[in-house]
């Protein structure tokens, strides 16, 4: 008999977390489609928009400086919400999740792996976008306490969007249908949330719609980092509203978490 020694202890949480994080990083960075779609698309958009829409916003600030905040917010949305919704829907429909839930892997390890993946992709996107912005378009990097705001807006936004992405994955039948619903949704959000156009130029009712979702608040928080305070006057409230940015994103974190807890499934529907 080859029964395991009764004293053999289950592997420690950190060791399984490390293993899952490695799996998730390899799964993402080795897949050409996800790397191109999630990482290179924002870069391409920055290059094109930076070259084409290089007008002055006033106070000597170029649109590229404005666009920097928006494209970073959109990049975070892609790395978290779109990435999670599509990848988890795929893994649910192809049986990967079912397989994992039949192993002694602690379930928290699955989510830790996903969070590490989102973090790594988010940091990669931000670094690449900043590099290109500085080298090719003369973007002014944030200074002093702006870095702190940059960090918390990005982290809180990524957290809210990751949770929402995980929750959205349960609505889709498979990865393909998740992609078909989430991608247009994200694109529309980008158009009405002040990513591609100045938020102040967008019709009020669209602004109102955008204000429900996290992207508008992420972009606004990041504008406070990249734009001089004089331009805060162009915001709908006449200020950066950082308190409200934190509040809305935190509420989305709570809503996303509740949705995840209530809707997350390890198996396809109909096999429960």
């Amino acid at each position: 008999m080859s029964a395991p020694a009764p004293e053999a202890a289950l592997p420690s949480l950190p060791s399984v977390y490390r293993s899952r994080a490695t799996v998730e990083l390899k799964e993402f960075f080795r897949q050409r489609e996800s790397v191109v779609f999630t990482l290179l698309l924002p870069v391409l958009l920055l290059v094109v928009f930076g070259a084409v829409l290089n007008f002055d916003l006033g106070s000597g600030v170029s649109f590229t400086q404005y666009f920097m905040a928006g494209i970073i917010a959109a990049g975070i949305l892609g790395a978290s919400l779109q990435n999670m919704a599509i990848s988890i829907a795929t893994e649910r429909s192809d049986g990967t999740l079912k397989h994992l839930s039949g192993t002694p892997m602690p379930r928290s390890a699955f989510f830790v792996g996903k969070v590490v993946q989102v973090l790594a992709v988010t940091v990669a996107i931000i670094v690449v976008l900043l590099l290109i912005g500085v080298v090719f378009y003369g973007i002014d990097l944030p200074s002093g306490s702006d870095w702190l705001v940059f960090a918390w807006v990005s982290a809180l936004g990524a957290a809210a969007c990751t949770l929402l992405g995980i929750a959205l994955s349960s609505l889709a039948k498979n990865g393909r249908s998740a992609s078909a619903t989430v991608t247009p949704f994200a694109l529309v959000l980008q158009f009405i949330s002040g990513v591609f156009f100045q938020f102040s130029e967008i019709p009020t009712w669209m602004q109102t719609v955008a204000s429900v979702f996290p992207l508008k608040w992420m972009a606004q928080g990041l504008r406070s980092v990249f734009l001089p305070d004089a331009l805060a006057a162009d915001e709908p409230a006449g200020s950066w509203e950082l308190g409200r940015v934190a509040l809305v994103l935190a509420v989305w974190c709570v809503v996303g978490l509740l949705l995840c807890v209530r809707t997350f499934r390890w198996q396809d529907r109909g096999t429960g």
Partner: protein
Amino acid sequence: MTSTPAAAAVRPAPGDPLDPTAAISIRGLVKRYGEFTAVDGLDLDIHRGEIFALLGPNGAGKTTTVEICEGYRGRDAGEVRVLGADPAEGSRRWKARLGIVLQSGGGDSQLTVRELVRAQASYYPDPRDADEVLELVGLTEKAGVRGRALSGGQRRRLDVALGIVGRPELLFLDEPTTGFDPEARRQFWSLIRSLRDLGTTMLLTTHYLDEAEALADRVGVIARGRLVEVAVPSALGGRETAPAVVSWTEDGARRTEATATPTAFVRALAERFSGEVPDLAVARPTLEDVYLQMIGHER
């Protein structure tokens, strides 16, 4: 099914207490999906160290029964113990003693075969060495190939590798060879036999009769959610005591005779023909004959 003493001895009756020594003990299991009753009062014990094959047509309740034992599905009535625990409350420690090969394997992975087996090993307290496992399933040469690039048969062998790397006491195999070519199935069978030699208990579902006959110590036939019979493969459906059919050609016509004593009958025939009997054949009902009869009766 108390037609033969052997069958009575291997099969618990409804109302018997759970067998605490069994790897799997099931009493009165019922599972419904809406109006449809998928499993309808199933009693079964699977002993430690044996290979048990659950045989039945599609939709008979094989996968439902197995997935209840694996902890994937709940049940509507009955008692189930798998390695002493109720699967509905399976702990991590309990799952560490199981190996599960699902009917459909995982997705297209970017990880290599070896990386996938190592990741799986990292969830278990006392895993086998990844390279040993790959050797065992015959994937050594594919160790550096990404999961997504495997063929169907290779993918299935990877599923088995993932199922056994945790050194399970009990291995579930749900239709493991569907889609295999004959050569791959033979290789797979020898893998299963070597796992049995290592002491692994196995519950196998299949709709290939030759597979059940070649591998299983005991076979359970399931139809319409009920166990129709449990027996060793050679005795299924009273096959070992069923009359043999002797056939030969005489005066240009095909003659057949059913007899309980085929040896004596053939000897008499041989004397009558004083030598070779033309086109002599002696046949017993095949597993397929009795199986089709069994599931036919239930329809």
